[in-house]
């Protein structure tokens, strides 16, 4: 796919919308950064390759009253679907340019692969090879080795919702069962092991709220109860209890809503597997309500509805 | 009719024992009498079933354990089936028989003798040997001619084996008897 096609599409819709959100070059060779296009002359700054990791759909709720065009990958498109389910955007105000995607890079993994050397240049081949030039060496890596985990089990390489699709749709070649393999595997551990694990990882949290700020579904933003006294769910003390509580607030608020874009983990400076708990709940939502977030715009998020007779919820015995 | 001094004769331990051994709660009984009404043996009992239940409630151990009623019960389960309070009355009667045996208070010697003959046969042969049981009963009870009128009929219709059929595992059955005896000694 050539970037030109993308640019043509953007040029075309720029007549209908106030702004189009895409990607452009970042401050160095490995970073892309969001680009807000409001005039035709900015279109040429657009780029599209495996560095375009950001979930640009996240900007939509805050631009709810504007007409916005947005460029989305398959995974990002689930955010839009979820917004529609929850009424957080008006579909008619959004123009969606879909880009089929077979994986992006994880910056953390890339840096690790080159031993945290400074990267001078990076190029991508169609066969999935990534050529990295560092101060010390030139290395060819396989994209899947440095892709975020979500790409390795990606079920939706082609956007689920779009107005314009650039390029040919891609079908997922990843087995469905693979998506939650890690979750199921982790759950097999003993209660003590699991608790110890979470105690360890949550203890790292510095409560910078980067995960929350990056999360497309954390629409409360300034009203987040993690920083409020009315209601006062948690204090500002830096204890494990409060950190634990913060992450469970995040988890419970995302129950049945998390589209697994992974922005939270990408944003976390402490390498906390922030997405894992939400994915565990998604696994349960699938089992309980046959619900997958961000897939069908007509679905209802399971926590905001009910069935009088819940087929899958059996009354529990004590103990 | 004699006065029962409830202060002196109520055996609270007995009430608890029956409760524990039967797993039934006799205090649930509100004396509707349905058990007595349905009991096929009421006519032969010295105390009708509902009174046996009442005697338990009032802790009259001696009276119950020496009664004929508990031995004349055939465990037909009518009382249990119809009890509105869901008390397994027949099971309580079973427990009372066990207690009476244990305390050597069996009043209906003939029935006990018959049961003993029955069990002896099992201990010996592994299965019931009908003729042997009958003869053994007649000898032990002293009723030498019980059912002798039936003999010719049974014979004429070839309904009975004269020789006991001893099973191969009869000693295994006998072992159940022995182990049970041992367990009694062990647990007192």
């Amino acid at each position: 796919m050539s970037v030109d096609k993308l640019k043509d599409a953007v040029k075309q819709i720029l007549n209908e919308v106030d702004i189009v959100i895409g990607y452009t070059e970042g401050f160095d060779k490995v970073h892309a950064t969001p680009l807000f296009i409001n005039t035709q002359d900015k279109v040429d700054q657009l780029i599209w390759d495996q560095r375009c990791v950001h979930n640009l759909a996240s900007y939509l709720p805050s631009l709810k009253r504007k007409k916005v065009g947005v460029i989305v990958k398959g995974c990002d498109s689930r955010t839009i679907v979820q917004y529609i389910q929850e009424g957080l955007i008006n579909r008619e105000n959004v123009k969606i340019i879909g880009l089929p995607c077979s994986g992006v890079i994880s910056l953390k993994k890339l840096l690790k692969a080159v031993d945290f050397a400074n990267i001078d240049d990076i190029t991508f081949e169609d066969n999935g090879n990534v050529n990295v030039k560092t101060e010390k060496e030139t290395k060819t890596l396989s994209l899947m080795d440095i892709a975020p985990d979500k790409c390795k089990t990606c079920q939706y390489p082609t956007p689920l919702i779009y107005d314009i699709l650039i390029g040919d749709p891609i079908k997922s070649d990843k087995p469905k069962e693979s998506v939650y393999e890690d979750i199921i595997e982790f759950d097999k551990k003993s209660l003590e092991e699991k608790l110890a694990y979470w105690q360890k990882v949550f203890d790292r949290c510095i409560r910078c709220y980067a995960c929350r700020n990056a999360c497309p579904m954390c629409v409360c933003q300034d009203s987040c109860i993690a920083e409020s006294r009315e209601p006062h769910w948690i204090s500002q003390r830096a204890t494990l209890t409060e950190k634990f509580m913060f992450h469970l607030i995040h988890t419970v608020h995302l129950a049945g809503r998390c589209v697994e874009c992974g922005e939270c983990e990408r944003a976390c400076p402490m390498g906390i597997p922030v997405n894992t708990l939400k994915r565990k709940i998604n696994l349960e939502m699938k089992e309980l309500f046959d619900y997958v977030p961000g897939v069908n715009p007509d679905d209802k998020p399971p926590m905001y509805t009910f069935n009088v007779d819940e087929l899958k919820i059996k009354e529990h015995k004590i103990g | 009719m004699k006065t029962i001094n409830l202060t002196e004769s109520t055996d609270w331990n007995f009430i608890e024992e029956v409760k524990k051994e039967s797993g039934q709660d006799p205090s649930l009984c509100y004396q509707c009498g349905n058990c007595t009404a349905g009991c096929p043996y009421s006519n032969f009992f010295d105390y009708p079933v509902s009174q046996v239940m009442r005697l338990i409630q009032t802790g009259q151990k001696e009276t119950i354990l020496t009664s004929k009623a508990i031995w004349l019960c055939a465990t037909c389960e009518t009382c249990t089936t119809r009890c509105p309070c869901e008390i397994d009355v027949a099971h309580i009667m079973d427990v009372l028989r066990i207690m009476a045996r244990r305390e050597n208070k069996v009043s209906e010697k003939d029935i006990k003798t018959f049961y003993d003959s029955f069990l002896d046969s099992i201990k010996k042969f592994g299965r019931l040997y009908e003729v042997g049981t009958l003869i053994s009963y007649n000898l032990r009870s002293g009723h030498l001619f019980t059912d002798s009128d039936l003999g010719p009929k049974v014979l004429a219709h070839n309904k009975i084996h004269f020789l006991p059929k001893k099973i191969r595992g009869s000693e295994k059955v006998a072992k159940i008897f022995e182990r049970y005896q041992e367990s009694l000694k062990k647990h007192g």
Partner: protein
Amino acid sequence: MSGLENKEMKIVGFLCNWCSYGGADTAGVSRFKQPTDLRIIRVPCSGRVNPLFVVKALLNGADGVLVSGCHPRDCHYSDGNFYARRRLEMLKRLLPFLGIDHRRFHYTWVSASEGARWQQVVKDFTEVIHKLGPLNLTREA
């Protein structure tokens, strides 16, 4: 009082005002004896029980949390317990993943007339928590 410190577990109950709180009252009026570990917080409806209250209680040192509402279809607010059922079920399934025994959290339905049932729930749940022993999620005193 000192003798009780280790004998009692910390158990929090969130009970809806109309059914379960009434059921607990009925049990009381009927003098149905119960273990003394449970402390009850009255809420209007089980639908008011944010799963985060349960989390908060467990993190703050509760050893067990019990939520009880009206039976499904019999909610005083018609649908509140239907929401509660989904949310609390979600939490119940999440807890073991966090390393918390799911038995420490139970949600159930007890009506205002079910004093005996309430007694049984309290007895059984308290027994389970005693078996599981104290919970210390964050190793903080």
